[in-house]
């Protein structure tokens, strides 16, 4: 199964819509609820990052019996130093983002904690790609 969702940069009223759809889909497929929670928390953090930092993006979801792969591709400023961005407390978020309850430099570390596998690649002034993989049968 494959799905994709468009994300609009800056549109906070819609941020989380795609993650919500992914949650509904996984629940329909009777995936273990603790895995659903870890998946959607990581995806939501990544989706909020696109809304907060990029001009727009696409979320590609690929799902089979064993795993779900969620690839979030954005067009945006990119991350110059991924290692630094992975550190808790590091953030470049605007005051608008902070007013929404984010921007404390916790998103990327929290994605890493929740995902079974997390890959991030980025090109400055082009965009960032985050890939979250979750396995349905392994416990983290």
């Amino acid at each position: 199964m494959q799905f994709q969702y468009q994300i609009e940069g800056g549109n906070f009223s819609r941020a989380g819509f795609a993650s919500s759809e992914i949650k509904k889909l996984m629940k329909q497929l009777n995936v273990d609820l603790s895995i659903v929670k870890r998946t959607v928390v990581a995806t939501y953090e990544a989706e909020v990052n696109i809304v907060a930092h990029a001009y727009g993006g696409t979320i590609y979801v690929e799902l089979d019996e064993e795993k779900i792969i969620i690839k979030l591709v954005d067009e945006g400023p990119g991350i110059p130093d991924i290692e630094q961005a992975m550190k808790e407390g590091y953030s470049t978020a605007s005051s608008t983002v902070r007013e929404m309850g984010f921007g404390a430099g916790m998103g990327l570390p929290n994605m890493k904690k929740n995902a079974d596998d997390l890959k991030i690649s980025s090109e400055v002034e082009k965009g960032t790609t985050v890939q979250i993989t979750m396995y349905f049968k392994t416990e983290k």
Partner: protein
Amino acid sequence: MTVKQIADILKASIICGEDRADHDMKIAFASDLMSDVLTLKEDNVLLITGLANMQTLRTAEMSDIQCIIFARNKKISPEMKELALENDIIVLECSYTVFKTCGLLYQAGISPIY
């Protein structure tokens, strides 16, 4: 403690989920920072917050939080109410500060997560 008992202690209004007023809550977390809420592993956490926007509801949805108290007299928008109803999230509005809300609930037996 049931949602109804919590509402009585806080003189709070149940905005959504009145039909689930007998839902039992044992633990709570207070934060205006949704990033902190998203790090919680526990289920059925009562969220106490003064941050009233769509992302509060989305964060609750992703974290399997079933009940939110909006303190400091914050009011939820019709859009937020719709999202709460869609996700079976119980919403209370309370005029007390977050500090007073937490104090009263702690005194009444609601436990912190850590």
